């Protein structure tokens, strides 16, 4: 039987699509480097900088407790420092036993580790804390101001892979455990653990919320349609769509990031929306006593055109995100748009033979839930038709009250704010900042024109001036520069006389000090050519907005003060983070404009009438406005996680409008009077779009139970946007139709 063969082939195809465990093949990587394009000037500068200087994204471990400066603890720390350093992906481990200390004695001078086993023998336990604190490089970095904490900084090689950073974190903690220091660790902070926690959160959300949202949708489908085949096909279709879509990350060479982790939930919901329309068509056809192929053909005919347009508009909305310069957002748009089309293709091509072959029984039509929904929709439509002006006035008042909230929306990303206040990384970061120094790195890079430009007295004095200015800023907790080394050498060569902790006034002496400096730390701050140097800043702020303020203040200062042959650039993790924010806002605007244009073109092609196209477009921009109002109201920032929501909402929200308006136009085309056509469309499709939105709304609302703020915001805003779009479609659209169409025809 050819029909049966086709059905089996379709079923097999669906099963195969489900058998691909796509996540196993993906590169899971949420490293910050993923969020900026390689063509970005700051990224290119940063890449160039890293060829000469080490990575600034580190892992900080804080130790507290009894006997911190005892032989036992310090020996264990030295041992752990050495064993952690052995890891191939670790560039350096900085602890009191492995940091250069410049010192002077009665007849000598030395650059030695600050507190290694040899020093332990030389300095009494009671004097060690003060000795370590007196080192200007260690204070605030390796020892707390109250002498109650010690720290270790683990610096990886230049890595752009979260899994590698996770490996480093695990290895460091394991070695510290072997050394017997675990009981003294009170905080693990810095960009490395922050990123690994993000990875853990996004994976946990993927494995928790995707099954929950699918299950929730399936339960609702079971309750609404009470058909086992519908439930099974829903599971197979969603599984196939998600698996095959995620595989696209591989040929596109893109990793699975925080942004892409939202694709499974989104696709599960959107595929379910198409399925509901198909099942609703089957239910209606079954009500007309149609069976087998006729029933499926009727259902397909009913949804094909509107579904094609809804899918196309959703894909267009998502595709508009391709305008973003942030790669994960761009590929989120491209890949999820493909997923939406794939879901539609499965529903249109693979499911019909299966339902033709195996869907024999009639679909229940006495569902009280559906009946209730239909009644509510009817009531709302009648109110809107009877009181269109009132509806419009309420809508306008609502917007007027809400719109000022939009100005409260801040474009701001704070990676720490992604986690709850009681999350270990939040607590650890606060502790490090309270006991030591800020953990956000920023650097001012100074370039001279010629070799040894940085050694010049004039340059050193200018660097000192900038460093002093920076440290006076409340956001800057620590500033280090090449000047510190020169001053310490001068001080060390003068028996540690404090009056010599200054830049010497002879050029030759500076040159000779720098010739003689025999450690490694200096070359982490100035290159061997002495042509480029960095002033390293530790900021106590984390949000892109606050970092931007610091960058702005520094820029103003540097513009005025660096006037001679030196050039300056602000770089580092903080700067990249700030740049990312600018791209995020630009991407949001571009994506929104792109989505609006694309959807307008589609609406115009669909309705062939400018006023209608504008009307439907307006109806679908309104939920985006509401979304921004909600963001302002609930202090949700425009950040990495929320940047793509406008595109998503515009794309999805337009579906209901198309279904309802298409029904209205179809009625008119078939000779019905406008009022009758409007009522018929709302009676027939209203309950379906309401059910779809309720299911999607539930699915996205479930994400609000995540412990990870980006997931919560994505779920809340998408659900709110969809429900708003439904309310506008059910109430505002009929009111506007009544006001703009001639109902006397």
């Amino acid at each position, binding site marked *: 039987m050819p029909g049966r063969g086709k059905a089996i082939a379709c079923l097999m195809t669906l099963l195969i699509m489900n058998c691909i465990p796509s996540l196993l093949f993906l590169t899971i990587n949420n490293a910050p480097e993923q969020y900026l394009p390689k063509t970005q000037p700051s990224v290119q500068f940063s890449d160039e900088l890293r060829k000469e200087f080490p990575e600034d994204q580190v892992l900080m471990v804080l130790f507290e407790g009894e006997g911190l400066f005892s032989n036992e603890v310090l020996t264990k720390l030295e041992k752990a420092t*050495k064993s952690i*350093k*052995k890891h191939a992906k670790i560039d350096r481990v900085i602890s009191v036993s492995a940091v250069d200390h410049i010192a*002077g*004695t009665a*007849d*000598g*001078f*030395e*650059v*030695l580790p600050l507190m290694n*086993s*040899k020093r332990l023998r030389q300095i009494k336990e009671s004097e060690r804390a003060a000795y370590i604190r007196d080192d200007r490089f260690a204070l605030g970095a390796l020892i707390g101001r109250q002498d109650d904490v010690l720290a270790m900084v683990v610096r990886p090689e230049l890595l752009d892979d979260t899994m590698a950073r996770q490996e480093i974190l695990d290895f460091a903690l394991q070695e510290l455990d072997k050394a017997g220091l675990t009981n003294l660790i009170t905080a693990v902070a810095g960009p490395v653990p922050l990123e690994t926690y993000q990875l853990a959160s996004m994976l946990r959300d993927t494995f928790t919320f995707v099954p929950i949202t699918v299950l929730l949708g399936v339960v609702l489908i079971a309750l609404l349609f009470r058909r086992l085949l519908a439930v099974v096909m829903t599971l197979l279709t969603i599984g196939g769509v998600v698996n095959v879509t995620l595989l696209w990350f591989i040929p596109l060479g893109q990793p699975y990031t925080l942004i892409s982790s939202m694709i499974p939930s989104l696709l599960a919901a959107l595929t379910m929306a198409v399925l509901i329309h198909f099942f609703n068509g089957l239910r209606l056809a079954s009500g007309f006593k149609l069976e087998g192929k006729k029933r499926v053909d009727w259902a397909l005919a009913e949804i094909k055109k509107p579904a094609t347009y809804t899918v196309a508009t959703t894909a267009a909305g998502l595709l508009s995100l391709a305008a973003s310069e942030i790669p994960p957002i761009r590929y989120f748009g491209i890949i999820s748009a493909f997923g939406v089309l794939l879901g539609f293709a499965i529903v249109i091509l693979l499911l019909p033979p299966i339902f033709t072959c195996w869907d024999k029984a009639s679909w229940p039509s006495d569902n009280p839930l559906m009946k209730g929904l239909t009644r509510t929709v009817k009531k709302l439509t009648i109110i809107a038709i009877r009181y269109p002006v009132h509806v419009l006035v309420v809508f306008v008042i609502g917007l007027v009250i809400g719109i000022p909230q939009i100005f409260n929306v801040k474009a701001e990303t704070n990676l720490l704010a992604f986690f709850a206040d009681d999350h270990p990384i939040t607590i650890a970061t606060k502790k490090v900042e309270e006991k030591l120094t800020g953990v956000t790195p920023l650097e001012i890079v100074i370039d001279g024109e010629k*070799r040894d430009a940085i050694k010049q007295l004039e340059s050193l004095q200018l660097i000192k001036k900038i460093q002093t200015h920076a440290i006076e800023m409340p956001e800057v907790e620590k500033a280090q520069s090449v000047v510190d080394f020169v001053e310490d050498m001068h001080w060390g*060569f003068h028996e540690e006389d404090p009056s010599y902790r200054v830049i*010497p006034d*002879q*050029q*030759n*002496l*500076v*040159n*000779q*000090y*720098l*010739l*003689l*400096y*025999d*450690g*490694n730390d200096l070359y982490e701050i100035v290159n*061997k*050519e002495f042509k480029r140097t960095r002033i390293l800043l530790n900021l106590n702020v984390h949000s892109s907005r606050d970092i931007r303020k610091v960058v702005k203040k520094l820029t103003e200062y540097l513009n005025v003060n660096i006037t001679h042959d030196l050039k300056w650039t602000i770089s580092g993790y903080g700067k990249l983070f700030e740049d990312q924010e600018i791209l995020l806002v630009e991407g949001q605007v571009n994506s929104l404009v792109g989505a609006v244009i694309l959807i307008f073109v589609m609406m115009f092609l669909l309705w062939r009438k400018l006023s209608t196209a504008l009307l439907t477009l307006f109806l679908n921009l309104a939920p985006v406005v509401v979304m921004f109002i909600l963001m302002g109201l609930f202090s949700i920032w425009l950040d990495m996680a929320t940047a793509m929501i406008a595109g998503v909402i515009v794309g999805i929200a337009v579906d209901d409008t198309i279904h309802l308006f298409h029904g209205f136009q179809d009625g008119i085309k078939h000779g019905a009077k406008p009022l009758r056509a409007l009522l018929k469309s709302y009676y027939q499709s209203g309950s379906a779009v309401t059910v779809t939105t309720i299911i999607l709304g539930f699915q996205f609302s479930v994400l609000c139970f995540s412990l990870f703020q980006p997931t919560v915001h994505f779920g809340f805003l998408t659900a709110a946007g969809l429900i708003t779009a439904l309310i506008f479609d059910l109430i505002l659209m009929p009111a506007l139709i009544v006001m703009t169409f001639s109902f006397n025809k």
Partner: protein
Amino acid sequence: MKPTQWLSRLFLFGWFISLPVFAASDAEVLAKRVYERPDGDDRASFGYMVLVEEGHKPRVRGMFSYGKDKSYSDVWSLIRFTSPKDIANTGLLTLDSEAKDSEQWVYLPGLDRVRRISSSRKGGRFVGSDIFYEDLQNRLYTKDNHKVLGKAKVNKLDAIILESIPKKADDSAYSKKVSWIHESSLIALKVEYYQDGATKPMKRLIVNKINKTQGYWTVLESTVTDLDSGHKTIMKVKNVLYDQGLADDMFTVQVLEDPSRETKYRPKQLEQK
């Protein structure tokens, strides 16, 4: 002489000549031979230290270098920079002895003062080069455990591969050294240096040019490469003189801080050209 006396003497003689075989392995014998390689009672040279970083013009420093073997394990050396101008007369004096740790002093003309450098700073980079202070010191072969790893050719010359691991981990900047010893000259043609028990070397010395001067094998050019950064230090010897009878008082702090007292010891043949 009684036969028993003969026999016992013969036994003792046999034991004595076989002692090195039983007491030391081939590797230790080789290490000892390398340590004792003839290089004169004293030596003086003029040469250049060239620092090479990819993409940049090399930095060239001129310097005189003097060395004297006071005894089997007591070795003295003095280095005096002559160029570039801003570091001219900067000097380093090193007195190595078996009895105590190396003693090192540095003289900075800008400060006009001599300061002692901590002897434990073995891993410190000498004047920003890839040469560590330990590389400038006389390290007794008995401080390491040695092992012959095999034979290989380096620049077409036959060499024995010798692995040396410090007996006490904290008395060396290196956790291991692997040297390719030229069989006839006993010069290490290539050395790979390991740190912190790593499996990959952190730097490599390659001898580019050797020559026999006054009957002593002399390294005329060598390159030390930092395998991590690619930074190179090339040491070039332009002129060398052995066995001039350098005075003991040349290797003193007084001479170090008074370059004029050292210049009188500079052989005319070595003068910078």
